[in-house]
């Protein structure tokens, strides 16, 4: 067993890892930036070392400083969490050079999956389907592209090689309209990026983002823990995940699970990883990428399978066999996660910073919260806006949704704005309840005002009017009182009195 694990991360995931270590009787070492002295991961760890100033590149991304702390503290393993250094091949290699365990895959696996083209080539060789396209081929002429297009199939997308953000992108429905669209795409790409190169990619219609959790040990055992549905996204950020996917059946799960295992085996994978797929409405699935680390949304898999993924990561990093065979993995009930972000859903999801002055967590049956914040903690602009993950479990999907509604209604965070109302609106959305959504749902079909005018609406408007008036009235009265009371405030004097009594 490891004696001491350094957690090279912050926030909720650092807390999650510290908890797993503590429950295994392993000591923990936290690292922190100047902005995080009061963070939960610092408070909960057995040891804590300052890395540097608040910006990540001066603290959590400083591999050199983190390795110094490894030496100073005598840690014998390192858990990178997600983000920061988690998918840096060189960092994983440096850990091994130092003779300590990296709780994650081998550097070669990180490298193989980190390069998109290489990852694509590797999994194709293993027989894993990818979104058909010409990206890997390099620069092609219009004639070449027109010849290749029927093999990819319509509809397809023309995409700028240098591109991003939809610039130079064109949707093509038939071969007839393609020549003109190629011209206009190249023109736009040229003007936007100074590079007119384009490639073709199959358009996956009504695509869902479905990913499989993989666990592998160093004895050649690889299993999957089922899928997670992550199609509720905004600007490519996942907001809500559920397990199982409402779209999945046992047959497709077995098929995709086997493919996911194959993809992991193709890079000789060890430890926890996630294979992301796009799935179209006809149940065709395409490999998207592999995340070679613990995933934000791992708790829903934990709740649906009963497997403690972080504990299992530590186990296999020690060279032990997996605790489960594929047959022993049972799927039970339904789990949903809402990512609670410090951002204002009524103001274009603008991030919100400030001190959390009060909070009330939803608790009770079937509710789990993973968070790194607490009342008194300051949300700074330096890091990710995700401040908590609210996870619920129910016997059925319907029960899980009802429980999530109840939990969201109870949750209070004061001091920063949060996207809790977004999640509440989503849980009330008929399309979400019906499981009828794809990755474009939030941006194309969802509005915070969409489902407002129900039977509760009239009463709510009146109550809102009353609440605002009573609050305004109260503040007027309070302000008047303070002015009347004048400049004397006795509270400090009370405190001095207490101090003097104590020292008599």
């Amino acid at each position, binding site marked *: 067993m490891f004696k001491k694990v350094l957690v090279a991360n912050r926030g909720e995931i650092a807390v999650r890892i510290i908890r797993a270590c503590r429950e295994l009787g392993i000591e923990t070492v936290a690292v922190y930036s100047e902005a995080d002295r009061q963070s939960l991961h610092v408070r909960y760890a057995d040891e804590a070392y300052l890395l540097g100033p608040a910006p990540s590149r001066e603290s959590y991304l400083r591999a050199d400083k983190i390795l110094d702390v490894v030496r100073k503290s005598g840690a014998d393993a390192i858990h990178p969490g997600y983000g920061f250094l988690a998918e840096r091949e060189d960092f994983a290699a440096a850990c091994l050079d130092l003779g300590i365990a990296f709780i994650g895959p081998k550097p070669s696996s990180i490298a193989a999956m980190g390069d998109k083209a290489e990852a694509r080539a590797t999994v194709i060789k293993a027989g894993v389907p990818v979104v058909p396209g010409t990206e890997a081929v390099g620069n092609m002429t219009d004639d070449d592209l027109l010849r290749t297009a029927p093999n990819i199939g319509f509809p397809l997308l023309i995409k700028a090689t240098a591109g991003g953000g939809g610039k130079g992108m064109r949707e093509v429905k038939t071969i007839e309209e393609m020549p003109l669209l190629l011209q206009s795409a190249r023109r736009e790409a040229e003007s936007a990026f100074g590079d007119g190169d384009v490639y073709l990619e199959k358009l996956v219609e009504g695509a869902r983002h479905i990913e499989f959790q993989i666990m592998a040990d160093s004895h050649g055992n690889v299993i999957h823990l089922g899928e997670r549905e992550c199609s509720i996204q905004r600007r490519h950020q996942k907001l809500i995940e559920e397990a199982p996917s409402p779209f999945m059946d046992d047959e497709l799960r077995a098929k995709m699970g086997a493919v996911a295992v194959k993809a992991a085996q193709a890079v000789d994978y060890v430890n926890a990883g996630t294979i992301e797929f796009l799935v179209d409405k006809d149940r065709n699935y395409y490999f998207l990428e592999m995340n070679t680390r613990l995933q934000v949304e791992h708790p829903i898999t934990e709740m649906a399978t009963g497997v403690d993924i972080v504990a299992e990561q530590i186990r296999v990093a020690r060279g032990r066999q997996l605790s489960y065979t594929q047959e022993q993995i049972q799927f039970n009930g339904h789990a949903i996660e809402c990512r609670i972000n*410090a951002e204002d859903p009524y103001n274009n999801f603008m991030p919100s910073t400030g001190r959390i002055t009060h909070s009330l967590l939803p608790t009770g049956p079937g509710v789990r919260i993973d968070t790194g914040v607490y009342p008194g903690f300051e949300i700074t602009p330096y890091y990710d806006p995700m401040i908590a993950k609210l996870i619920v479990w129910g016997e059925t999907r319907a029960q899980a949704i009802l429980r999530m509604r109840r939990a969201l209604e109870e949750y209070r965070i004061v001091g920063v704005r949060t996207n809790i109302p977004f999640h509440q609106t989503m849980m009330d959305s008929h399309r979400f309840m019906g499981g009828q959504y794809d990755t474009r749902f939030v941006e194309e079909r969802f509005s915070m005002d969409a489902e407002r005018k129900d039977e509760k609406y009239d009463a*709510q408007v009146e109550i809102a*009017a*009353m*609440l605002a008036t*009573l*609050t305004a*009235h109260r503040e007027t009265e309070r302000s008047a009182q303070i002015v009347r009371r004048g400049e004397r405030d006795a509270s400090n004097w009370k405190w001095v009195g207490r101090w003097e009594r104590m020292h008599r």
Partner: protein
Amino acid sequence: MKYIAEVEGKEFEVEILDEKRVRIGERILNVNFASVNDQPVYSLIVDGKSYEAFVYPGEEDWQVLLQGRQFPVKVVDERERRLRSAAGGGAAQTGEFQLKAPMPGLIVSILVEEEQQVEKGQVLVVLESMKMQNELKAPRAGVVRHIRIQPGETVEQRQVLLALH
């Protein structure tokens, strides 16, 4: 004390009769109103119905977040209302608007120039905070003046970035 509360296009006359009674329109209701732990979280029991809401001051109104929905409410007392109507409407549309940073962050780009005419909703500045890029838009049409920032600059919350005339 009599107030007028305007929410979602409707107006309510709300009179605070005493600690336990409020008149809204024609009806007199029994209310029990309390702040929770001195936070902007308020518990209101109206004739047995129990409600809890966040009530935050906005720029010119109150934001009431109730049962997962947000209602902006303008509240004026009768005296204020008389003063305002005497002063005449529409004055709020003119004058200078100062664009302030809604949070601390890094200026990624400034998409307008001084003296440029902009439309309502046009993006003026892109501000990065919490790993996200945020577009700060014009709340109304106008002419850009006094750009006080440069790309790459770090700004504090509420720092004035530019003005709109």
